[in-house]
């Protein structure tokens, strides 16, 4: 059973080694001529005015919340999708009932303007 996952482990190991080699060569071979103004964050040739690490617009947070809601619900569709032929119309009706609040929630959000930028 778990042997299926050997492939994943092997590919993970190979990719990590590959990346380590690439980065390692780069860090060794690449020159290092650091001076303060080179290390300034890019701000189109000016001194940065505000630090980027500050309280950001709440809209991005709204997206995150939406994502959690919908992604968790999406997970329920997967097992249902694979076996729904056995469940028949009863299963179909249940997923319909399950989807309804989801859709209502989406439209509520939509009408409220939460999806507008």
């Amino acid at each position, binding site marked *: 059973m778990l042997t299926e996952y050997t492939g994943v482990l092997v590919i993970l190991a190979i990719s990590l080694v590959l990346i380590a080699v690439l*980065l390692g060569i780069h860090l060794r071979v690449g020159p290092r001529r650091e001076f303060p103004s080179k290390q300034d964050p890019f701000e189109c040739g000016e001194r940065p005015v505000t630090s*980027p*690490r500050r309280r950001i617009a709440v809209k991005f947070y709204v997206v995150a919340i939406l994502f959690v809601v919908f992604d968790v619900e999406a997970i329920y569709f997967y097992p249902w999708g694979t076996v729904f032929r056995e469940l028949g119309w009863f299963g179909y009706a249940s997923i319909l009932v399950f989807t309804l609040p989801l859709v209502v929630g989406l439209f509520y959000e939509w009408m409220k303007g939460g999806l507008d930028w």
Partner: protein
Amino acid sequence: MVVAVFVKTAFILFVVIGVLAPIITWVERKQSALMQNRIGANRASVAGMTFIGLLHPAADVIKLLVKEDVVPAGANRVLHLLAPVMAAVPAIIAFAVIPFGGSYHFGETTIELVVANLDWGLLYIFAIGSLAAYGPILAGWASNSGWSFLGSLRASAQMLSYEVTLGFSVVGVFMVFQTLRLTDMAIAQDTTFRAFAFVEGLFGLTLPASLGWISALRLPNWGIFLQPLAFVLFLTAIMAENKRPPFDTPEGESEIVAGYHTEYSGMRFGLFYMSEFIGVVVIAGLITTIFFGGWSVPYLSQEMIIAGVGHFFGVGFATGFCMLVHFVSFMLKLAAMIWLQMALRWTLPRFRYDQVMNLCWKILLPLSLANILVTGAVILALEGAA
């Protein structure tokens, strides 16, 4: 066992990273040149020979390797280094579940042309895809630059949003094939179906005999024919996941400089770049497997090939031949899908950020939900009729 897996993985990674990814950068240059009436990549040369620009990928790598590694002041050095790794690893390990061919029996031994034949293969892809979102997010945050940060905000919002749509868009597909295992999905597409059978099944109509071949028309049992809408939704969503144009708002170079990788140079940037190109291959592989019958050859199932060739040359040779044919078939479809992505990339302008989000939440998501419900109803109705 582990050795076999290792060989297989090494081979696939060699094909993908060693051969395909560089060639794709070359194809991207050449295809864009063709589309734009240019000559295209032809500058890198060894001893005066340019090999139609094929040296450019090598020149790219060398250039990225010997560039200075600049980390901006005030950056979080650990996360700054970790971010490209977090971007590149998921792109590479996504290959684990994409079948490059079916399973072939040579007497006792069975060869499966897939690294890990997981029964939740598609889910694995999505899980890995979610991990890929960390790369841009960490990169933007760690860089301590306004542009990077904007880019990473955009990347996170866009990738999260499209993940939802991505998840919903393929539900219809595995309702049809009843599996999440990608190899099984490809096997299920190795047959044909009568294109207009649904007319009889759903509406109880009989097609008039005058239609002749049209009513008898058989199509390969491919996802694109069974779930055309899902194909469009999936293609859109997964291209947005990969942040390639026209969905490259997180790195829109004319707007936010280079987005989340503004502060990256050398191989650190190279890893982001590489992860995107490998992403193109992964997407092509996924679309091929889910919607274009994977490695199967249309109208020629595996049994037919083995039986037909085996009749003359013996089963062992026939199986090997079949394996080769399937691998070539997969590669050809892969190339076509890569070409499709490139053509889209060089034709379409970039979306505006709010348009990307609107497309996801207001168009793709409702459509994918509708697709699930309609698919379910049609399948149940057809089963009831049968």
